[in-house]
């Protein structure tokens, strides 16, 4: 029964066979007998009062079963709750109704819902709903929204301010008073649209006999969806089942529960028949959350030798028209704690203003707060390097937290678990041959060729997280995870996780963990996720927590199973428990390897229980409820090498090297895949993507082409290098890799382009760095300096 080592090997994914044969079950694939279809009428205006809403023509349409308006659901569906309420932040939570009652506050706000016997009829009927709007003044940009005289969105949020949140450490005022050099920059983190390939949707089924609601839902976290659905619908939590088996990408956008989900549940109960609602892509663009959207004023204080002494940040975070479920946590705790990055910056202060605007709500998008932080500090380090005429490598090294300092308590009070920032930087520099590149850059500039080298030495906080910390941060839930490992009589195992992987491959990595621990062949292990009826509890998949937290719960449950199996083996082999040796699925007696029982033998006996040791309960099943003792801190160094065509503004990525340390690696193939995808999204932000609103609050980048979801010709080959610095905070030394690529990459690309264009006196660029924007930046710089640095020299 030889089992090859599973941990650390690139096992092919166990979820793939159903995905590559078209036999997956995404929410839109669910078809129930008698199922009706819902469509939502969305506001075409960003801010308006509804003066007339007449649904009679739509209601009379053959095939239309019901039309609901805000008044119809008022008192029957509670407003959508906000589930992250940072303490001491004066947060305002205006009511976020599933359908507007009298005022719409963003283009895409729900106005009415139609349920019909077919999706075509439901969508047709939307055109038969008569609505008169009285348009109100619109504001979409956050610094404009907080200015005096700006249109007001909510009565209880004067000045459109949702909150003011602060974090600091050390004495930042002294640091700036004593600074020998200060660099300042206004940074705009443009608004992004997550664009999971599967839009969002729900199929709801009401069982009147049992009083139970079943919801198939595109959720990253079905148990949270169950809890929130209970709050909104009033159906008890133990009478709701949420199923999210196959989910077509999420990137944070499928964390929240949305109005559409709740309307579907409402309609299913009202009509007593199953109802399906699936967003169109256009709907997804306006009604599913957006990400990022910060305006930051940043100041960095340093000594002339490059020692950074202080960092001051003011950030205006656009939260959209209402608070999405986790929205207040993203620009606060997930951002503010990480602005000092991987550097020993003793003094810092962050002020965050959360702002309501007439735009789609903003919430977590891959990285969620940490990309905004990493971009900020990495950009500022480059600006400081320019100011001090230092090599950005040397400046970073001078300020790195040294590898001997871990566990390191940062000024933010976070305790970084482990790291070796010089090591990953060394590897990245070696991979690109940094010195040779700098020489080439110098030569090229003399000939009008603009090569740029962009560094990003990042650290992120993930593996969310200790539940006590969640509570302290105002997260209205825990962040622990349960796991159950059950070995059946036939030796086949079921592994239950409360996380809900949707592309990250944990059906495979979790099977690797259990297979390694119990010596079971991986094909005998089934990982069950995404069903609240099968899994006791769970907080879901986000924050790069699935493997670090969910996987830790699983290994601890598996260890309990092995421990029990070992004791049972000792009993059956008539040996002392301490004399049992376990190797690859065999329990043998020390010194006499022939006396042995396989894990399958033990599983059979435990399940039939004919011959158990005294006091041992039957069965071979163990659970573990794991609450992490700390967050984890993946880190690494990314280097982007670009050639910029100064005549056209085109940026060509020549090489992209990603050195990532996500702790111990279970499946290298999957880890690399996560980095590829993460970097692609980061490059997307740097070069292509951006949500743009016009003055009236219309999302003019409202399709995948207008928005520019990067295609296969726009993303370069990404060279990945893995290093493994175990985390001391969990049993397998895991850290997490779902977000590293996104957190690290955007600033690497921008730093590269800024580096390339330094001869023009350009040191910062706004994103996305489209050819037009780069070209204009160059032309502006030429005009300002009055020179044309065709052969600029340095």
């Amino acid at each position, binding site marked *: 029964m030889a089992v090859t080592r599973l941990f650390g090997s690139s096992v092919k994914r166990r979820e793939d066979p159903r995905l590559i044969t078209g036999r997956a079950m995404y929410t839109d694939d669910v078809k129930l007998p008698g199922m009706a279809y819902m469509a939502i009428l969305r506001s075409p205006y960003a801010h308006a009062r509804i003066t007339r809403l007449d649904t009679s023509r739509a209601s009379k349409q053959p095939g239309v079963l019901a039309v609901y308006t805000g008044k119809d659901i008022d008192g029957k569906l509670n407003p959508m709750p906000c589930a992250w309420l940072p303490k001491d932040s004066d947060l305002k939570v205006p009511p976020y109704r599933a359908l507007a009652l009298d005022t719409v506050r963003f283009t895409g706000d729900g106005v009415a819902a139609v349920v019909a016997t077919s999706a*075509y009829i439901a969508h047709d009927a939307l055109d038969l709903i008569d609505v008169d709007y009285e348009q109100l003044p619109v504001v979409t940009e956050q610094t404009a929204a907080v200015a005096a005289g700006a249109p007001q969105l909510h009565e209880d949020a004067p000045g459109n301010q949702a909150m003011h949140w602060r974090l600091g450490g050390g004495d930042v005022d002294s640091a700036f008073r004593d600074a020998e050099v200060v660099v300042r920059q206004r940074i705009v983190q443009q608004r992004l649209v997550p664009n999971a390939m599967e839009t969002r949707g729900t199929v709801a089924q009401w069982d009147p006999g049992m009083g139970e609601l079943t919801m198939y839902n595109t959720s990253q976290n079905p148990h949270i969806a169950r809890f929130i659905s209970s709050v909104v619908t009033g159906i008890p939590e133990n009478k709701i089942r949420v199923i999210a088996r196959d989910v*077509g990408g999420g990137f944070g956008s499928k964390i929240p529960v949305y109005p559409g989900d709740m309307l579907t549940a409402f309609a299913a109960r009202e009509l007593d028949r199953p109802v399906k609602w699936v967003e169109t892509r256009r709907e997804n663009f306006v009604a599913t959350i957006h990400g990022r959207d910060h305006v930051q004023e940043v100041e960095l204080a340093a000594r002339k030798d490059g020692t950074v002494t202080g960092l001051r940040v003011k950030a205006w975070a656009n939260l959209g028209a209402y608070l999405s479920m986790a929205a207040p946590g993203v620009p606060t705790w997930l951002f503010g704690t990480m602005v000092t990055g991987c550097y020993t910056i003793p003094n810092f202060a962050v002020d965050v203003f959360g702002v309501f605007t007439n735009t789609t709500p903003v919430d977590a998008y891959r990285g969620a707060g940490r990309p905004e932080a990493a971009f900020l500090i990495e950009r500022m380090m480059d600006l400081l390097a320019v100011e001090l005429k230092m090599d950005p490598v040397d400046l970073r090294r001078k300020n790195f937290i040294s590898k001997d300092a871990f566990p390191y308590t940062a000024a933010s009070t976070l305790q970084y678990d482990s790291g070796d920032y010089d090591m990953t930087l060394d590897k990245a520099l070696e991979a690109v041959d940094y010195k040779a590149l700098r020489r080439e850059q110098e030569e090229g500039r003399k000939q009008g060729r603009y090569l740029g080298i962009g560094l990003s030495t990042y650290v992120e906080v993930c593996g969310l997280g200790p539940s006590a910390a969640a509570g302290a941060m105002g997260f209205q839930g825990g962040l622990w995870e349960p796991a159950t490992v059950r070995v059946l009589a036939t030796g086949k195992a079921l592994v239950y996780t409360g996380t809900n992987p949707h592309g990250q491959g944990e059906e495979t990595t979790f099977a690797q963990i259990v297979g390694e621990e119990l010596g079971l062949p991986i094909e005998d292990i089934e990982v069950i996720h995404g069903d609240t009826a099968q899994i006791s509890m769970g907080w879901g998949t986000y924050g790069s927590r699935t493997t670090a937290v969910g996987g830790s719960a699983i290994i601890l449950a598996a260890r309990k199973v092995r421990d029990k199996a070992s004791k049972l083996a000792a009993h059956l082999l008539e040996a002392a428990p301490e004399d049992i040796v376990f190797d690859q699925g065999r329990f043998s007696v020390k010194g006499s390897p022939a006396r042995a029982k396989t894990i399958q033998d033990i599983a059979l006996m435990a399940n039939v229980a004919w011959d158990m040791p005294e006091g041992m309960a039957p069965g071979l099943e163990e659970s573990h409820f794991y609450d992490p003792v700390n967050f984890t801190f993946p880190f690494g160094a990314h280097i982007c090498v670009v050639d910029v065509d100064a005549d056209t503004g085109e940026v060509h990525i020549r090489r992209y090297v990603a050195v990532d340390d996500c702790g111990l690696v279970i499946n290298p193939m999957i880890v690399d895949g996560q980095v590829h995808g993460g970097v692609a999204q980061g490059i997307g932000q740097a070069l292509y993507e951006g949500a743009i609103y016009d003055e009236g609050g219309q999302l003019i980048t409202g399709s995948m082409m207008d928005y520019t979801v990067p295609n296969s*010709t726009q993303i370069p080959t990404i060279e990945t290098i893995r290093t493994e610095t175990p985390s001391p905070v969990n049993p397998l030394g895991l850290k997490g890799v779902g977000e590293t690529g996104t957190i690290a990459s955007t600033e690497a690309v921008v730093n590269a382009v800024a580096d390339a264009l330094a001869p023009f006196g350009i040191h910062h660029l706004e994103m996305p760095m489209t050819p037009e924007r780069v070209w204009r930046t160059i032309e502006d710089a030429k005009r300002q300096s009055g020179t044309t640095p065709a052969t600029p020299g340095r």
Partner: protein
Amino acid sequence: MRQAIHVTVNGAEHGYEVEPRLLLVHFLRDVLGLTGTHIGCDTGQCGACTVLLDGRAVKSCMVLAVQADGAKISTVEGLATKGELHPIQQAFWEKHGLQCGFCTPGVMMATVCLLADNPTPTDEQIREQLEGNLCRCTGYQNIVAAVRTAGERMRASAAAPAGVPAQARAE
């Protein structure tokens, strides 16, 4: 109002009366129950719904079911034969060419067409040919590797046994 159509889908013949406005993708998914073909954008931008219509890759959200009357259609469900995965499916699995899997059926069907047209594509050609198939998870790198690998294997297996030209086999 309804219009009769006859189509062959993955080798099976079907006759239905459909609304003239019914999209081919909805016909496949809702009428025939072939839910392996996914809808990502409903506007012809993402390619998740790519199927083969008489051997050519089309975005089935941009084709009316009535336009497919008389045509042979292949979907992801028809790729594997007798329980044996198609070399393209094998390669996507081995090369980790998918993560959430939502775009994958469309990407694989586009790949069938790509390799039929050009059995020896360079990486650059693969990227150019697949630019109409968006993927948000993989960064495309392993998709390119999977297509390259599938092409190599299909050439090898086409050449090896009976000397059948790769082109003929791909068709």
